[in-house]
């Protein structure tokens, strides 16, 4: 059985990637002829974390949380508005173009929609070889051999190399996308929703493949996903985002067993379990309302408008991410106590969750 390795590299090694106070803003078109500043959408607002060598670090959150934007900003696709991204000791905003090219070889990306992210006029061989050509890594017989080896590594038959993308199923195409990312022997891969377009039976194949590659090649992975069960299965550490900010960051087991931020807790409680008995016991915390618009985020804590614990303080000051225990930090003025019912185990009935109270109006 191929078991997953024990979690996390030793923390004393320097991280492979650090993100400090990352901010990503998009100016929007003017909605009227009025003069004044153009409206600006802040998709990511001051996010900091560090990814250790060899770990799977996941960003989770709902649409509009800024998780994909964060992943792309790290790879400078496009560069962030502010903040610093350091890869292997080098500040990516300061390196010269030639060095950036060399660094890009080491940082690759896997996309959600494999058909849309592959050139459908190229054969699979050409798709996988292209990044090697760009970085001048292999030529001739050596190049063909490497393509064959890569296809085998991701579970495709090398003989299929002369086929075109439309001849493959979704799962097979995602393997092609992974082979392309691996072609330049990266040490860091950003995988943005790599399995969410796949059927469950095929999804499991790709999840196992990612786990195996990470183990065999010592890859460091930034996984961006909304499916919490997938994240739990693959990750060493997990960061939860809400409306452009990090609300909690913790070791995977800690986060799923004892979430400290109310949003994390609500998120975990909302995942249905494929077990009728557990479903009958599960009491999801039903959040009221929707994620507010990032054009007009709430003052203070961004989650306060949907939080059942919100008080006046939450509207006045934005909580910062602070350590709450070993391997766990949350940005909340009133974090959940340790030992708050875990939702990740079939456990005795949960105490009825507090009914979400209407948001507290901000004091004038």
């Amino acid at each position, binding site marked *: 059985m191929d078991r997953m390795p024990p979690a996390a590299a030793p923390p004393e090694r320097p991280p492979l990637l650090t993100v400090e106070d990352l901010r990503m803003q998009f100016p929007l078109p003017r909605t009227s002829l009025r003069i004044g500043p153009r409206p600006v959408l802040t998709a990511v607002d001051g996010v900091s974390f560090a990814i250790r060598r060899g770990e799977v670090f996941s960003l989770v959150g709902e649409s509009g949380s800024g998780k994909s934007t964060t992943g792309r900003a790290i790879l400078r696709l496009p560069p962030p508005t502010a903040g610093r991204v350091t890869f292997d000791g080098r500040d990516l905003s300061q390196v010269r173009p030639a060095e950036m090219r060399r660094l890009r070889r080491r940082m690759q990306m896997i996309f959600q929609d494999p058909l849309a992210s592959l050139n459908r006029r190229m054969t699979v061989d050409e798709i996988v070889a292209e990044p090697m050509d760009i970085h001048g890594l292999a030529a001739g017989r050596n190049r063909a051999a490497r393509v064959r080896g890569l296809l085998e590594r991701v579970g495709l038959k090398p003989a299929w190399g002369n086929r075109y993308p439309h001849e493959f199923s979704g799962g097979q195409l995602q393997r092609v996308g992974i082979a392309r990312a691996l072609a330049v022997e990266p040490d860091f891969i950003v995988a943005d929703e790599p399995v969410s377009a796949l059927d469950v039976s*095929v999804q499991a194949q790709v999840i196992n493949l990612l786990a195996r590659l990470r183990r065999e090649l010592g890859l460091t992975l930034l996984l961006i996903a909304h499916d919490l069960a997938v994240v739990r*299965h693959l990750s060493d550490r997990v960061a939860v985002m809400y409306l452009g900010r990090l609300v909690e960051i913790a070791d995977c087991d800690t986060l799923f067993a004892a979430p400290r931020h109310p949003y994390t807790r609500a998120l975990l409680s909302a995942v249905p379990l494929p*077990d*009728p008995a*557990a479903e009958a016991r599960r009491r999801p915390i039903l959040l009221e309302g929707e994620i507010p618009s990032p054009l007009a985020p709430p003052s203070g804590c961004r989650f306060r408008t949907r939080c059942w614990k919100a008080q006046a303080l939450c509207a006045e000051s934005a909580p910062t991410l602070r350590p709450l225990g070993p391997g766990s930090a949350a940005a909340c003025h009133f974090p959940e106590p340790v030992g708050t019912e875990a939702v*990740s185990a*079939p456990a005795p009935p949960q105490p009825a969750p507090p009914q979400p109270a209407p948001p507290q109006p901000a004091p004038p």
Partner: protein
Amino acid sequence: MALLEVEGLRTTFRTWDGALRAVDDVSFTVEEGETLGIVGESGSGKSVMALSIMRLVPSARVEGKVRFEGRDLLQLPEEEVRRVRGSRIAMVFQDPMSSLNPVLRVGRQLTEVIRLHSGADAATATARAAELLSTVGIPEANRRLRDYPHQFSGGQRQRIMIAMALACDPALVLADEITTALDVTIRAQVLALLRRLAAERRTAFVMITHDLGIVAGMTNRVIVMYGGQMVEVAQTVDLFANPRMPYTWGLLDSLPRMDSDRTEPLVPIEGVPPDLVHPPKGCRFADRCRFAREVCNERIPALQQAAGAEAGHLVRCWATQDTPAGGWLADVPRTAAARA
């Protein structure tokens, strides 16, 4: 008498490569107030089946019987089917934006449905529309009737579609992947809403989904589909406690779960779904099945009682039926660990 009786439903598309049978001999019933789950992966035929029941696949040949409240929908003139659609059977789709008219106010779209099917006057229809919007949890319903679809969030648009489906108090709602496009916390809200509506109104629901978590939490009975065919039918509790078809085992084992041992690798189903233009001669799942024997490649098994399961638990599988030709998995343990 059952509310809906589907018998021998077959839907065939003509393609350049030949006839594609997307739905192949599907038969089931839905009782009043029941929630039936239909689970399957892409290409299993679950969505085409729902569309066929509603007679919404004009490009395909649909055969069989769809008896609803005593009448065969496949035999009715188009005019009458239109009257049934929307008033007695409603359908909600995955993508609410493409089902709502973007240039009409939501209130207009709702009142149109109400007036068309009930003949109510404008004022009554508007009042009813506002009531429906608040039933599905949209605040300030009266004011929001004047908004256009783009002014609502994805979760709200899905609620509007549900409101529209409920507008005429249908006896049956066909819901096709209606929470798939929604975020986790919004999905929880919509599922809670559906659960409440099913309990309060005695509306029957057919929930078409690929999500076994939703099946477990929402349905009374489940049909598992594969390659256009029904491969397993059981009470929901029984299906999860005692799945009998190797494909169903595969679905359950390949799923990462919030309560599983995460150090164990998942057990995927290797291979790919069958080509329905050139379907295999025998069991559609045989070439991906770890337990297949010769007979599986030779003959399609019938959908019949599973060995060692509750009465009414049907399976289309030589290995787990109690027949002279098969039954070699009749005593296989049910838990994933024991199977592996």
